[in-house]
């Protein structure tokens, strides 16, 4: 099967102006992926499905990933000229930067006809709050129908063009997106016999004020 770079080159030739980048997977599995820009994503997906050399007729797995803002500290060595006129010094400068926050949808494509795969494609939202639209690939692969609904339900990605975008696992009046990294669980651990960490911290709020209990002596 073609590598991710070869597929990208072929796609760029077919869809001039489309944003397609290869996302390298540093892990041992080396399953690299193609990041597709939203405007062309559905056309590209259709092409991948129907292209005779790829024929990715099965979209096996659709999932969301939440990437909140993360502070990354890059340590850069900078050569600073000495104001006193001495030899220039090399100092380590720490640059803080924030990675952009976005939600990502990952599709794993396989070909049942040609027995190869996976080709991994990704789409990304603009941010995590108001620009959460990505094109739905349900018109291309029916298997995305429920899985995209699940991503919508748990991550809050809105799929434009999805035929029936409703919550699927949680109830309809639910307001949060529980699989996001910053989701706060409802406070329902009133009493746990073996509390730990955050459960303990949350449970403590519900403990009655116990003046009777003797203070543990140090």
């Amino acid at each position, binding site marked *: 099967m073609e590598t991710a770079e070869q597929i990208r080159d072929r796609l760029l030739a077919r869809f001039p102006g489309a944003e397609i980048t290869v996302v390298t997977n540093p892990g041992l599995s080396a399953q690299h992926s193609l990041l597709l820009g939203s405007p062309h994503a559905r056309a590209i997906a259709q092409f991948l499905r129907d292209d005779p050399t790829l024929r990715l007729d099965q979209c096996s797995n659709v999932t969301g990933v939440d990437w909140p803002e993360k502070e990354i500290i890059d340590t850069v060595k900078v050569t600073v000229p000495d104001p006193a006129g001495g030899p220039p010094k090399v100092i380590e400068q720490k640059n803080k930067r924030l990675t952009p926050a976005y939600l990502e949808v990952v599709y794993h494509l396989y070909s049942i006809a040609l027995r190869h795969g996976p080709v991994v494609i990704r789409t990304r939202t603009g941010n995590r709050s108001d620009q959460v639209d990505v094109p739905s690939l349900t018109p291309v692969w029916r298997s995305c129908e429920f899985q995209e609904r699940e991503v919508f339900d748990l991550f809050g990605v809105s799929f434009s063009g999805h035929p029936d975008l409703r919550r699927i*696992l*949680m*109830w*309809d*009046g*639910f*307001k*949060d997106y*529980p699989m996001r990294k910053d*989701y706060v*669980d*409802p*406070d*329902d*651990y*009133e*009493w*746990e016999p073996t509390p730990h960490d955050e*459960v*303990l911290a949350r*449970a*403590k709020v*519900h*403990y*009655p004020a*116990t003046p009777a*209990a003797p203070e*543990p002596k140090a």
Partner: protein
Amino acid sequence: MPEDAAPALTTAERDELRRQGILLTSISELYNWGRSNSVWPLNFGLACCAIEMIAASMARFDIARFGSEVFRPSPRQADLLIVSGTVTKKMAPQVVRLWNQMPEPKYCIAMGACAISGGPFKQGYNVLKGIDRFIPVDIYIPGCPPRPEALLHGLVELQKKIRGEKLSGPGAPRHLQPDNDCTYPVPEFGEHDLEPPRNPAVWQPPILTRPDKA
């Protein structure tokens, strides 16, 4: 026969009399004996434990030996609700509704860790931390999942409990109390959690007596 005449005899004496062909019993004993040997569970499976519940009703464990093989699909015909598996928040209102639809006298077995306390899934956002927050539970069977034998043991314990019930007086069970209405409030879906998250008439968090960990 007056109700407390029979308990004046010990069990051994009564067994001896039974061997001699004299059946000595009280109304309440006869009544409870009959009830305890025909506990019909609701045909209601939630998760993994339901498979063990089905296994318990199959040939090898044969729950029919205890008179409980009649799994009723309708709550109107059932005496026993076996909460077999994780109760999620989405499912909790339905479980309470089923419980409300069952006629008294009715009993509830919380089978498995999830039904008792949320079990391994207790840290999940959609998992109810124990069905006893909404309905009264008679028997708790720990295990994940409990073996079918453990379920049978739980059933035997429930039968013991039923046999020990009195027919009148302040110690009488719920269904014989005059001011009992057997409905429990059904929680509603809220924006973040169930509303209310527990039924205070049924469940109060116990006071933690252990000193906090440093």
